[in-house]
Every structure is written in C-alpha cells, then in structure tokens.
C-alpha cells in the first residue's frame, strides 16, 4: 500500500464516519460561494453594460471656431495628455449640419432657410470603456472645458455619475462578500476539523503511537478540506446558475436589449472552483497544524 492509497482510504473512512457533521460545513461553504458569486456576477455584468454603452459614452466638445490641422493636432495632444482615449473625431460645421439633417428624417424642410454653418464645430471624444476612465469622466470634462476655444462640453453626466456610483457600490459589495466567503470558509473548515479531531481523538493518538508520519496524519484532513471546497463550490455555482436562469426567464421580456445578462465563462467558473478548493484545503491545513501540532 503506498502513501496515496493509504491516505485516500483514511480520508474515505473518516468521511464515512463524520459526514453528518461535515454537512453543515458543506452548506455554509455552498452559501458563501453563492453569495460571493452572485454579487460578482452582477458586478461583471455591470462592467459589460459599461462596455456596451458605446456612443452614449462620448464627450462632445463644442468649439467656437473650426480648428485647422495644427490646432486639431494640438487639441489631440492636450486630450491625450489627460487620459488615453479610444478615438477622437473632429466634426466640422458642415458635418454637424449633415448629421443633424439626417436625424430629422421627414422634417428636413425646417432647415430650408437656415445657413449650413449655423452649428458649432466640435470634437467627439470616445473615452476608453474601462471603469477607471469612466470614473474620471467628470474631471475629464472639467479639464476639456478649460481648453482655449471650447464653448461647452456635453456628456451623459447624470447617467455616468449614477452608473459610477452603482459600480463603486458593487465593488464594495463584491469585496465584502469575498471577505465573507474567506472568513466563513476558513472558520467553518476550522470548526469542522476541530469536530473531526475531537471525534477521532483516540484514533489520532493511536496513530502517533504506532509511528504514523505527520503527513500520514494531516493529509486526510487536507483532502477532506479540499473535497469540501470542491463540493461546496460546485453546489454554489450550480445554485447560482439555476438562479441566473430563473432571473433570465422572469426578466428577459422586461429588460431592454442593453441589459442582456450573461453567466460566467467556463474559465471563470473553473477559477472560482479552484480558488474555493485551495481556500478550504489551506484552511484545513492551517487548522490541523494548529490543533494537532503535526
């Protein structure tokens, strides 16, 4: 019998004897994973909504005069000095007129007597669709307003601010639920290990007397912790998926096309499971070293 076979059969025997007390730990881990992944899913979907904002998230800088090429280059340089942007477009008076005309559709005749240069030239700045850039958009706007020749800066100020506040709140909730996951998981694993050690006290004492190595004693606990992490995270992710499908089914018709929610990709699911396993195995490893000094 080699080491692995011996510790696996030890683990199996221990689980068969203590599965009732382990159930509570399993449920707690499942719940912690569910809470954390739920908020993380909402957060990552919110980020995706930010990415889909596209044209709504542009800053329009109205200028008093049509800039020549040198001035355009200067504006471009000053904009990029503040923050990297996705693209910058210069809109001439004529282009603005054509754009406006296109928007009027059937009512274009209202423009019949109006000169084609009545609209001011502008710069359309598309910021990078990252949260950092979005968070800075207010400061960005203030900066642009101070540039020479700028009449006004326009952007979906209220919407962006609300969105930023929401994302900031989500970030805090994700961090809190992540900390909760770590705390509850390590606490429950520690508690579970303590119960198992207590129920197997005589056996562990005997193992030392017959010369069991430290790794022979602690590896089954380590494996139990890892198994709890694996089962707990799989159960938690399954529960989240069921919840996600239910939300999709109930709210699909009501939500606008902009808010199409998506589940985690396979890579993220695997990462969450692996992290849970590592967390639980690590928790049990630390606990057993502390309790048994092995």
């Amino acid at each position: 019998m080699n080491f692995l076979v011996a510790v696996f059969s030890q683990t199996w025997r221990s689980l068969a004897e203590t599965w009732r007390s382990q159930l509570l730990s399993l449920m707690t881990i499942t719940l912690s994973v569910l809470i954390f992944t739920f908020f993380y899913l909402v957060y990552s979907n919110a980020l995706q909504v930010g990415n889909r904002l596209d044209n709504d998230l542009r800053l329009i800088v109205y200028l008093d005069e049509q800039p020549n090429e040198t001035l355009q280059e200067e504006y471009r340089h000053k904009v990029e000095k503040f923050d990297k942007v996705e693209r910058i477009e210069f809109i001439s008076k004529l282009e603005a007129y054509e754009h406006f005309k296109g928007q009027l559709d059937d009512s274009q005749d209202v423009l019949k007597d109006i000169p084609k240069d009545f609209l001011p030239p502008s710069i359309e700045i598309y910021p990078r669709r990252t949260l950092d850039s979005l968070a800075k958009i207010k400061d960005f706007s203030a900066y642009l307003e101070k540039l020479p020749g700028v009449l006004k800066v326009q952007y979906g100020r209220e919407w962006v601010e609300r969105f930023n506040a929401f994302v900031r709140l989500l970030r805090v909730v994700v961090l809190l639920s992540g900390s909760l996951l770590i705390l509850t998981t390590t606490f429950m694993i520690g508690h579970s290990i303590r119960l198992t050690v207590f129920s197997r006290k005589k056996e562990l004492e005997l193992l030392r007397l017959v010369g069991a190595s430290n790794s022979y004693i602690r590896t089954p606990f380590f494996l139990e912790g890892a198994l709890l992490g694996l089962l707990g995270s799989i159960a938690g992710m399954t529960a989240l998926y069921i919840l996600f499908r239910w939300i999709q089914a109930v709210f699909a018709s009501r939500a606008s096309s902009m808010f199409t929610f998506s589940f985690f990709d396979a890579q993220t699911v695997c990462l969450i499971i692996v992290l849970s396993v590592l967390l639980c195995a690590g928790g049990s490893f630390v606990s057993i070293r502390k309790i048994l000094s092995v």
Partner: protein
Amino acid sequence: MSGEEKRLTMIDLARVSKTFPPDVHALADVSLRIRRGEMIFLTGQSGAGKTTLLRLLSGIDRPDKGYIEIAGHDLSRIADAEMQRLRRRIGVAYQDFKLLPDKTVAQNIAFSMEVSYRSRQFIRAQTERLLTELHLLDKHDTLAGRLSRGEQQRVSIARAVANEPELLLADEPTGNLDAETAVLVMQLFRRCNEQGVTLLIATHDQAIYDFPGSKIIRIENGRLAIQKPPTAVRKAEARA
C-alpha cells in the same frame, strides 16, 4: 561499548530515573542492557515501575534523568520523523489495550500495518493468520467495543505483532486471559522470538515466564532487583 556490541544491543538504559508529581519515584537509577533477540520478563509487584519503564522505552514518556537508546537511537536526541520510523519497528501491547471500540477487530489490527504502507494482501493475510493463531477468526468483523476483556487483550497483542516489529513490548499481556489462552499468546511470543524479535514482557504471572533461554528482571520500588534466569528466580523466591 564497541561498534559490534552496539549493533547487537536493542535496549540500553543508563541511570534512568522518572518521578511523577508530587513525589512518586517510579524509576530510580535503572541501568539495563538487552541484546537483540532476547526474551526478557520484567516482573515485580503492581506499582513497581514496570509500566513506567515500558512507556519510557516506547517513547510515550521521557525520563527525568538518564539515557535511553533503542536500536542505536538515543531517544533524548531523536528527531520527530526518526522517532516515527522507530515506532513502526516497535510493537507495543498496552495494558489498557488502546483499541478503537467503534472499529472492527480487523481494522484495529490493520492500523499498525497501514502506517507502514504494507500492501492490502499482506494486511489481510497477516490479520487472518494472527486471528487464527489467537482463536479470534470468528471475531474478524466484530466491533472491538463488543469484545470481552480477554478478547480485547488478544486483539491488542495481534496489533503489536502484526507489523513484524524488531522489538515487542508487552504490558501484562496475559492479565485478562485464562491459562489456556495465555499459552496461545506465549506460543505466539515464542515464535516471534525465534524469528529474531526482541521481547520485553512486563508481567506478574509466574506461570508464563518459566521457560529455557529467557531471562527475568525483577523491579522493586523503581529499582532493578534481580536479573537471572527463571529457575534461579524461582529458587530465590522460594527461599524468601
């Protein structure tokens, strides 16, 4: 001690003392050398210090003073991992059996072999052989907690012997056995001894320590009193 002598020595104790609070001198200045392959009976009244000596030899307790060497390992300086390996080479039949009541007889015996990573076939064969030899084969799957004291004692002995130890320490191994079963246990011990196992048996059962080639060590109030062959002890005891 020369290198050759050291190689032939299994147990070496020099001026070992052990006191338990408040003021119980369990062992005082005990010096003793046991060669490999010897079979020694440690006799003496209850409380004389026999169990304390076995606990020191199996590394459960540490002496207050003195030096203990087992199979060339100085127990005062031995590293944890080395002590674990040494314990796998020592079989101990405890006076209180130290069985796991909620495990079967077979599982209890398998314990000492599993920690040495013995193969499943070896564990199965060895368990069945020992249970047959000790007339316990029908108890193979019985929970140890449901056995009589005598049966539990035999299971404890089987576990001590199962891993083919180099040194076997037995504390009152026939204390709960009838004469017929005690003979079975002694036959098992003798066979182990013939295979080269060193045995130290603490007992006050006179009936078991009288056979040729064995030595008796008498311990009184924590001190070694006599170290003679059994017939000489018997004669001395008869004269007393």
